[in-house]
């Protein structure tokens, strides 16, 4: 066994992450009658994906009021104010990428 002073140091090149993880809300057991927000990421195929997903859910789940929202840019996070509005005005939200 080597004495400690002759050991080699290993460095961690990653740096710490100081942000706290925030989990997404639990999924509701049923969407029936719930207010549903649809967040469009502004991509061509994203919108088509959301429209078809919504149509399927409306047919099978009997959704309540549906409200559409748009992100400012598909490559950036939705603005905190927009997320706040969606959270206040809906019980569930549908979003997706679709490149």
């Amino acid at each position, binding site marked *: 066994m080597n004495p400690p002073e002759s050991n080699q*140091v290993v*460095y*961690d090149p990653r740096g710490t992450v100081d942000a706290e993880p925030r989990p997404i809300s639990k999924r509701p057991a049923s969407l029936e009658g719930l207010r549903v927000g649809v967040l469009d990421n502004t991509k*061509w195929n994203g919108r088509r994906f959301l429209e078809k997903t919504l149509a399927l859910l409306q047919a099978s789940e009997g959704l309540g009021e549906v409200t559409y929202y748009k992100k400012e840019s598909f490559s950036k996070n939705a603005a905190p104010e927009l997320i706040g509005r969606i959270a206040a005005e809906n019980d569930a939200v549908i979003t997706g990428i679709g490149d």
Partner: protein
Amino acid sequence: MPEAVQKRAAQIETVDADADLIEHYYERGFSDGLPVAPPTPEKVEAMVAALGGEPDFLEGRVPPRWGSLTREVLAINAVMAGCLPEYAPVVRAAMRALCDSHFNLNGIQATTHMACPLLVVNGPIRGAIGMNADCNVFGSGNRANATIGRAVRLILLNTGGGWPGELDKSTLGHPGKYTYCIAENEEISPWAPYHVEKGYAPEDSTVFAIAAEAPHSVTNHISDDPEGILESICSAMSTIAHNNAVSSGSCAVVIGPEHAATIAGKGWTRHDVRSFLWMNTKNTFADVSFGHRYGKVYNRNLPRWYGREAESRIPIVPSPENIHLFVVGGEAGRFSAFIPGWGHMTNPVLRAVDSGEPAPGAICVDGTCML
């Protein structure tokens, strides 16, 4: 080993004196695929000192993992990449550019597109640290170019978490994701350097960062006038396959020294070159919308003021200023290159090495003044 060094938080463990550290870093997953130079306390300390000391000083947070880029973490990655301490200020300027919110590194790291940051260094630091701006400028063979670019990539992987398939979802990637760092050949260029065009003094040093695809060669051995050479570059720009065609944004063009000499020899300025390129690309809305073959297209990624008629011309980028022009390469050979960008989702960023701000007032370069 001094006690102060032993207490550093980034030192996660010690291993036996005869352990193979290169293999150890591979096992920990801290490599870009190539062997890293194992950091030692002495080398890390020297790199931190080159950044001004204060190892815990936070230089930025690197998305999408948002790891804290302290000077010590920057130094560790720079040593691993093979950098000398005198390269450290360039790596820092590059990371400051990349962490500017206008650059949208979060999107660039995660996108399915192949873009990654291209770094272009200007000013006296190029010579001071022995960067290559000459033959094979985009290729291998120069320590400063290779390891500055690699240090940035290691930070994007280790600190930013841009590991392939995890937070980096690029379908294809490109070779610049190992290293993608060049210097402008200011000595051979007939025009003022890029950073001077942007208002810095010639004695300032800067790093320019743009999210970019790989360079596309432009061959023209026949034209003895600016128009002919630039038409060849326009031809490379006029495809519907690169991201600028459908997502606008910014791009880079590098003019080889022989082409630059011909163009400038006819009295053309950098602004003339950018304007000609902007004016003469050939894409139309019918091209980029596939003639509505797959459904009616508006394309929200293109500026509102572009026409949407079939024959409407669709510029590659919204204005000549969105074409970032550099003179690079060896003195022989009639070649230039077009380097497509990522799109409107990012803005290129220019940052001074160490301190330094652009000079105040109108920017006048090569006889062209812009207020």
